[in-house]
Every structure is written in structure tokens, then in C-alpha cells.
């Protein structure tokens, strides 16, 4: 039987994926009963992959590395896992789990990463980068001011993408499948021709960028040829649609090693091709699931070469292949399709996994069967996260978006973001108590804050000083971000990803903060209890004596929750006053990844009673053990942070023991789905869900080999628990595991 023609529309005239999806999607309201298990080929491949990842763990996290070749779209010949079993082909290098060097972010980082495994780059390469080639990292440090370096080394600004690739940009990988590359090149050539004089900085830069993009598209055609795929033309069937989309993503992860390289929202796009082939009787459910299983398996095998220090901020070797699933269309229909289910089902067919980072776009209007299935998957695997589709769609204006990295909205093909890691807001608060000096070294960081000599801390005085500190930290943060993104564009431009995005995309600059709960509780202690700072001989605070009780963030108490939401609003407002490279829109996130541990180390004792060096809570979470009024009160506190003040996301990681969700599976599913409805109805933005017992995690620390696939959500992403350092494992275990709702 011949397949039917797709419904036509604007997408036939211009590059417009949203229009294609809206006109051709088949929303699905049924249950998961149609799903099937993995095919024999899939199982064979997965066995090889599991063996490979086991070797990887045994070899200190790296199975093999190429030290000769600089990675690029066509740097390696075609690689296979087991060719006869692969229905979706393509590897980053010529071998499974072999890592490649991507030195344009920073050559020193590559050298360091290699040396940690007893290797070094080839002499040729070392000579090249020492004498002739400049990296992003070189550029940034040429421009950095002494002030920025000071903020960076003392831990006010941490994790900045100044020696590694920034990531966060999501190519619209669907474009190659729908249009074929020839058509995309034509469109880019038209765009290029339209960028004419006067030749301002902006016009020159854009012309160069579009020309780079066209080169990348041509390289992708060549990459396809190496695998005998004709990517120049559109995909003609479901298998090709999956394959073409994966090839587009593969080009991106061969060229770049960005911290987070999300996939977008490909599942319901692919469903259109799958539905068409199913309807025509060309394939059955077995093939449909096989394509998705094998695609997902490939995504699970994506690797980048990282140095150990990187693990402190991004633990567990994550790649953030974030795929956003579900949500609603602007016309009121759901974006849930059978392939939304098929993606989730890979967590059973292949077992739990942190990657791809499956993110459910939750709406009150999602089909109940889908809500229940998501809840079931969360309970069974602790591998998925949830974000508020109703909130983001209405606030940001598009129903065709993906999640950049962990929690950030990004309209697909129309906008990008500049990743900005985060600043340490708790350490910034200590500046307010120490006359603008670092609490450890006494280094003057901020001018204009009077020395604090009163016996007890006064809330109004502290707030006034804190505002001066926030303003200054925001200024230096903004300076560093402008330099970083200027240099990244110049020395490590994402030509493959950008070739799959409109020529003049919207940009938001994604600032972030860490230590929010510490700030809120500290201010609460100062306001509602009596806090006496203990100072050393240099006059720097080293500890605090607290007399009396004070409300703590995480218990649904407006007195302190307001202090949290207000701190977010004030810092965001400071950032908004500053000029931004490429006129990007200012957004901010409350997200730490796993840096909450290292931030804690770099921060002295705080007025909330937290001792020096103790890890922060992750993201926007209440501090461990302080949210003691049950799960709902904790969720309610976080939900009070206003999304408008933190449009890049508000991350909340929530762990609950299975029995407190309900006595049996049916009750647990119902209660989790209801909890998500309740939380998001209060305009909360994000929730990581772990349904686990602490005892299992303790056992996994003792017997890691028995838990190779144990997955746990940390902060906007998931990790293989056994790949965390012991310190990080312990931090996860000390987090609040709610034993009651």
C-alpha cells in the first residue's frame, strides 16, 4: 500500500516544523496497552552496549579515546555497534564509546582530561594549539578583567563556560527529516543573500555565521554518505525519519561537546511518519518500537571527553540529551502521541537510564491515561522529570519548544540561549556582613559596604548591604558573560546546530543563582530570631549564634517563602539593568546541577546555622531536613517563586519513599499524578521525581555492581547513581526523603 500524502500548509512554503506537526499530528488518548517489548536485534545491540559501559566503568569512566583526530562532522569513518542488528546507524567516532577530542572550547582542558587517563594529545596537535590555533578559552582569558578573575577564583562565579563548550543550543533536528538538506541549504543561501550593507559589525558577523552554517550542512550530506544515507532529500518513511533526525543530532555532538545538548521535542514529530507507515501497513508496532528503542540506545551512548574537575559541577558524566514529551497545542489538542509512550517505554525495554533526559511537559489537560503512565514510569524508574507546560506555553508564547539542558524553555528552531552557569547568592549575602570582603580571604570584593560592627544582625541593615552586593555581583557576572559568549561565537561557533535554526533567532542570556534556600533561611533567622555573628581577628564572620526560632523555607510559611521569592526577583532585576551581548533577553534560573556540593565548600558559615563547607540544597530546594511539614508544604514553598522572575527555570528535586505515595501501585500512580496536578496548578515550573528508599541507595553504595542502571534524579537531570563520587552519593542520601505527604 502507498503511504498517504501529508496535509499541506505553510510548512510547504517556508521552513516551519510547528506548522507541519500541528497539521499532521495524531493525538493519542488511550492507554499503554499497545506497547511491545524490544526486538531481538535491539536486545543483541543492548547487550553489547551494556558490556561496553561496564568496561567503561572498569576503566575509570573512559573506555577509549582517540588522541590523534580533532572531532568534527566528518572526522571519523562510519562506526557501528553490530551492523546487521542496527536499524538506526551512526556513532560519534568509529567505535562504540570511543571519545573524541573537541579542543576548540579549550585545549588545556583536553590535555588535562587525557592526562588523567595517562594519555596526551599527539605532538602535532599540541604544536598546532600552542603556536597557531586559538581556542574559546584563550580568547576569554585575553579579555577577562582582574575583577572577573577574582570573582571566579574565590567562588562567586562558578562553572562558567569559559574553558568548555557552552551547549544549551538546541538545533531543530527534525528539519533534515522533513526537508532534506538540499532544501535547507537553499533557504540559508537566500538568507545570506538578504544580509546586505551597510556592513556593520552585526551584518558582517551574521554573514560569516550563515556561511559557516551552509558549510556544516554540506558536511552533513557527506556524513550521511559515509553511512549510505541520502540526507540531501527528505525522509520518505518512518525508519528514515528517525535515522535522518538522529544524523542531524549526531552532527551536532560530533562537532560540539557543549555541557548540555538537548534533542528538542522529536517524538511526536516522528510519530507522524510512524503513524503513516502503520496505517499503510508497511510496518507493525514491533518495527515502530524498534526504531525508537535503537534511536534511544544511540542517544544513551553519546559521550564527551571531560576532565575530572568537571565532575564537581556536572556529576556522573551527563550529556543532557533532553527530550521534551507531551504538552498541549495552542489549539487545545494534546501533543501526546503513541510515540510519546514509545519513548517512555524504552525505560522498560532497555531498563532505566539517565539519558536521554526525558522531560514530561505536564498540563492539567493532558490525557489522563498519559498522566498515569508517566506517574508509573516515574515510580518504577526515577528517570524522568516534569515541567509545567501550561505555565511555559502561556508565558513564553509557543507550543513548539524543547527544554535546554535541565529546565529551560527554548522555542525550537526560532531561539537559542547563552548558557551562564550561576552565581553564588549565599556567598554574596556574606559580603553584606563582611564589609564587602570575602569571608575566607578578606579580599575586597565589593566597595561601598560599611563594616558591620553591631553585636546582633539587623535585618534592614543587612538587606541594604545585600542589595549593594547583589548589584555589584550582577555587574561582574554580566561582564563575564558578555566576554564568554562573544568569544564562543568567535572561536567555537555551533555551525551544525545553528544551521538547523532560523538565521536570526531570538536569544536569551541564561543567568543562574545557587544557594537560594540558604539566603532565605539566613534572612529569616536575622529577621525572626536574634543572630549574633562570631568574628575572627580580621573581623570576618566565621560562625553565628542564633537565639530563638525562625521560620524555614520549605514549610509553606509565607514569612520566609517571601524572602526567597523576593531575593530571586531582586537579583533578576539587577541583571536586567545591564547591557547584553547580541541584545539577548535576560532570563535567570534557580538551578545548581550538582554544583551545590562544591558551592557549599566555597562558602563560609551562614546566618541560618549552616556550618562552613556544608553543601547547599540543590536548585530551588529547601535545605535538607528543614522542610519537615510534609511533601505538600515543601512543594508549596517552592511554587511561590515567581516564574516571571526566573524564566530560565526553577528546579525542584523531590524524593519520596514509595509507601508514603500509597499502599499499592494503583494508589501510588493516582497520588503522584494528583500531586503533579496540584503542584503545577500553583504555577510551579519544574519537578524531578524520585520514588526511592534510602536503604536501596545505601546498598548501592556498598554493592555498585548490582546496580549498574540505578538511576536517580539530581537537579534537572538524572545520573547513574553508581557513577557519582562518594561525597555526592552521601549528599543525595542526606536530602529530604518525604515520608508523609
Amino acid at each position, binding site marked *: 500500500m502507498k503511504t498517504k500524502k501529508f496535509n499541506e500548509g505553510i510548512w510547504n512554503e517556508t521552513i516551519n516544523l510547528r506548522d507541519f506537526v500541528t497539521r499532521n499530528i495524531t493525538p493519542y488518548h488511550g492507554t499503554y496497552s499497545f506497547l511491545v517489548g524490544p526486538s531481538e536485534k535491539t536486545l543483541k545491540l543492548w547487550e553489547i552496549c551494556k558490556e561496553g559501559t561496564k568496561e567503561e566503568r572498569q576503566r575509570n569512566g573512559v573506555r577509549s579515546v582517540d588522541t590523534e583526530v580533532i572531532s568534527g562532522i566528518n572526522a571519523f569513518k562510519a562506526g557501528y555497534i553490530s551492523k546487521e542488528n542496527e536499524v538506526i546507524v551512526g556513532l560519534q567516532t568509529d567505535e562504540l564509546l570511543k571519545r573524541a577530542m573537541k579542543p576548540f572550547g579549550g585545549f588545556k582542558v583536553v590535555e588535562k582530561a587525557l592526562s588523567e587517563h595517562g594519555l596526551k594529545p599527539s605532538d602535532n596537535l599540541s604544536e598546532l594549539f600552542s603556536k597557531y590555533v586559538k581556542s574559546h578559552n584563550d580568547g576569554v582569558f585575553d579579555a577577562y578583567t582582574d575583577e572577573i578573575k577574582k570573582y571566579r577564583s574565590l567562588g562567586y562565579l562558578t562553572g562558567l563556560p569559559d574553558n568548555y563548550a557552552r551547549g544549551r543550543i538546541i538545533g531543530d533536528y527534525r528539519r533534515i527529516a522533513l526537508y532534506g538538506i538540499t532544501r535547507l541549504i537553499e533557504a540559508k543561501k537566500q538568507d545570506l543573500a538578504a544580509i546586505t550593507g551597510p556592513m556593520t559589525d552585526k551584518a558582517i558577523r551574521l554573514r560569516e555565521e550563515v556561511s559557516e552554517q551552509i558549510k556544516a550542512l554540506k558536511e552533513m550530506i557527506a556524513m550521511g554518505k559515509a553511512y549510505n544515507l541520502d540526507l540531501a532529500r527528505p525522509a520518505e518513511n518512518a525508519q528514515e525519519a528517525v535515522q535522518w533526525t538522529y544524523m542531524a543530532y549526531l552532527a551536532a555532538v560530533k562537532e560540539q561537546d557543549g555541557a548540555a545538548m538537548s534533542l528538542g521535542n522529536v517524538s511526536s514529530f516522528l510519530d507522524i511518519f510512524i503513524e503513516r507507515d502503520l496505517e499503510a501497513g508497511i510496518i507493525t508496532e514491533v518495527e515502530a518500537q524498534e526504531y525508537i528503542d535503537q534511536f534511544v540506545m544511540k542517544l544513551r551512548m553519546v559521550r564527551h571527553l571531560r576532565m575530572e574537575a568537571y565532575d564537581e559541577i556536572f556529576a556522573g558524566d551527563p550529556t543532557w540529551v533532553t527530550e521534551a514529551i507531551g504538552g498541549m497545542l495552542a489549539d487545545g489538542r494534546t501533543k501526546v502521541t503513541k510515540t510519546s509512550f514509545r519513548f517512555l517505554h524504552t525505560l522498560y525495554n532497555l531498563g532505566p537510564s539517565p539519558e536521554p533526559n526525558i522531560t514530561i511537559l505536564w498540563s492539567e489537560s493532558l490525557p489522563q491515561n498519559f498522566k498515569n503512565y508517566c506517574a508509573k514510569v516515574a515510580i518504577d524508574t526515577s528517570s524522568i522529570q516534569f515541567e509545567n507546560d501550561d505555565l511555559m506555553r502561556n508565558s513564553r508564547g509557543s507550543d513548539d519548544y524543547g527544554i535546554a539542558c535541565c529546565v529551560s524553555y527554548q522555542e525550537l528552531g526560532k531561539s537559542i540561549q547563552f548558557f551562564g552557569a550561576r552565581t553564588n547568592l549565599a556567598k554574596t549575602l556574606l559580603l553584606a556582613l563582611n564589609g564587602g570582603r570575602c569571608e575566607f580571604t578578606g579580599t575586597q570584593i565589593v566597595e561601598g559596604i560599611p563594616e558591620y560592627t553591631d553585636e546582633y544582625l539587623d535585618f534592614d541593615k543587612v538587606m541594604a548591604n545585600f542589595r549593594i552586593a547583589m548589584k555589584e555581583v550582577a555587574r561582574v557576572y554580566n561582564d563575564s558573560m558578555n566576554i564568554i559568549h562573544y568569544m564562543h561565537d568567535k572561536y567555537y561557533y555551533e555551525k551544525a546546530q545553528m544551521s538547523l535554526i532560523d538565521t536570526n533567532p531570538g536569544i536569551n542570556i541564561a543567568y543562574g543563582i545557587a544557594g537560594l534556600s540558604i539566603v532565605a533561611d539566613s534572612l529569616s533567622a536575622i529577621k525572626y530570631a536574634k543572630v549574633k555573628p562570631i568574628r575572627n581577628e580580621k573581623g570576618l564572620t566565621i560562625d553565628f549564634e542564633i537565639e530563638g526560632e525562625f521560620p524555614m523555607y520549605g514549610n509553606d510559611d509565607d514569612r520566609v517563602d517571601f524572602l526567597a521569592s523576593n531575593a530571586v526577583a531582586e537579583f533578576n532585576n539587577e541583571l536586567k539593568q545591564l547591557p547584553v551581548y547580541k541584545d539577548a533577553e535576560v532570563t535567570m534560573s534557580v538551578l545548581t546541577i550538582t554544583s551545590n556540593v562544591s558551592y557549599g565548600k566555597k562558602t563560609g558559615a551562614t546566618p541560618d546555622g549552616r556550618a562552613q563547607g556544608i553543601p547547599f540544597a540543590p536548585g530551588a530546594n529547601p535545605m535538607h531536613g528543614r522542610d519537615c511539614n510534609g511533601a505538600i508544604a515543601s512543594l508549596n514553598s517552592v511554587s511561590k517563586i515567581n516564574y516571571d522572575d526566573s524564566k530560565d527555570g526553577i528546579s525542584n528535586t523531590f524524593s519520596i519513599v514509595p509507601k508514603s505515595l500509597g499502599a*499499592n501501585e494503583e494508589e501510588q500512580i493516582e497520588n503522584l499524578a*494528583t500531586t503533579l496536578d496540584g503542584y503545577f496548578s500553583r504555577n510551579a515550573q519544574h519537578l524531578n521525581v524520585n520514588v526511592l528508599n534510602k536503604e536501596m541507595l545505601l546498598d548501592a553504595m556498598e554493592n555498585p555492581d548490582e546496580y549498574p542502571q540505578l538511576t536517580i534524579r539530581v537537579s534537572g537531570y538524572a545520573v547513574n547513581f553508581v557513577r557519582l563520587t562518594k561525597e555526592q552519593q552521601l549528599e543525595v542520601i542526606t536530602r529530604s526523603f518525604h515520608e508523609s*505527604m
Partner: protein
Amino acid sequence: MYCHNPDTIETSGGTEYKIEELVEIALKMKPYFGKKGGVTVSGGEPLLQAKELIPFFKRLKEEGIHTNVDTNGRILNSFAKTLIDEYADLVMLDIKHMTEEGYFALTGVSCKETTFNFAAHREASGKNMWLRYVLIPEITSKPELLHAMGNYFKEFKTIEKIEIQPYHKLGIHKWEALGWEYQLKDARENTPEELEEAAAILKKYFKEVKIN
């Protein structure tokens, strides 16, 4: 003698809340209730405070919140009647034991009949009720006791379901913390098979049997 919340038995002490404070807490949780959730008063024995609970439940009903009383049915004064007849959407009635001796041995009081009268009162009001039954091996798990319970309640039309509460020792540490002697130390926890067997018996008499 096996209550898992022994800290709630004492009739003095605790934290006093104003009714509006409790209503406010309930309202903050309302978005999470879904179709089946609501407020349950439990204990100890909530009906000891039946008079005070009336205005609380009245306010909850005004706010459209589902109300539920989890009780052992030992108190049926006029306040308790008003509360459950007019304001409680659901009563969860704990059946301790089907014989007077057994009841006394477990609770130290002779109130088996009061509990049955309570059930009859609820039945007469025509409003929903669930039964709850803690299955303690060798003490309440004997098949004849389960049949007796089934026969006694099988004609009740208001009973929507019976919940079997597996016996567990989670409360022991709380008893020890209170400096009391846990009195069922020797009882063991149920096996899954025992729970299924008990459920199979009860299914002959009740519309729905659930193992918690």
C-alpha cells in the same frame, strides 16, 4: 496496645490550633486532593473532640473539601452524632476484634458493643462508611473471626469497602521513646499469603476488600 501513633493517645498536651488555621492549611493542600482526597481526622480518637470538630468540618464543607473521620467508634454522644450525620462525608470505622474478650485484651476497655452501635447508627444515616481491620497473626487473623465479621456486617448497605491493615511494628520505637512498654512485642508481622487468605474470606461478604 499496638497503636502506631502512641504519641497521639494522651488526651492532654499536643499543639492547639485555631479552626481557621486548620482550614487554611487544608486550603493550601486542596489543589493536591484530586478527585478522592480531602481531610481525615484521626488519632488517638478524634471523636473525643467531636464538639470542636463540628465547626471545623462545617467550614471544610463550605470550602468544598471532602471530610472523613477515622474512629474506633467508641464515642457516640450527641456531638459525635451531629458531626458524622451532618458533616462527615465518610467514616472509617476501626473494628478491633469480634469477641468481647478479644476486644478487651487488645484495648483494655469493653466497648465492642459501642462500636457495633456506632456502625448501626452510621448505617441508619445512609452515609458512606469503610471498615478497617488490623490483621494480627493468631490474635485477629483467625478465619472464624473473619467469618463472624463478614456475617455481622454483610447486610450493611453503607459499607463501601473493608481495608485490611497488615500488622506492623513501626510504632515500637515510638512506644519506647515514650518510655512505655510495647505490649505486643511477641506478635509477628503477616506473611503475604496470610493477607491474601484473609482477603479471600472477606471477599465473600464485602463489595471491596483492600489490603493496605
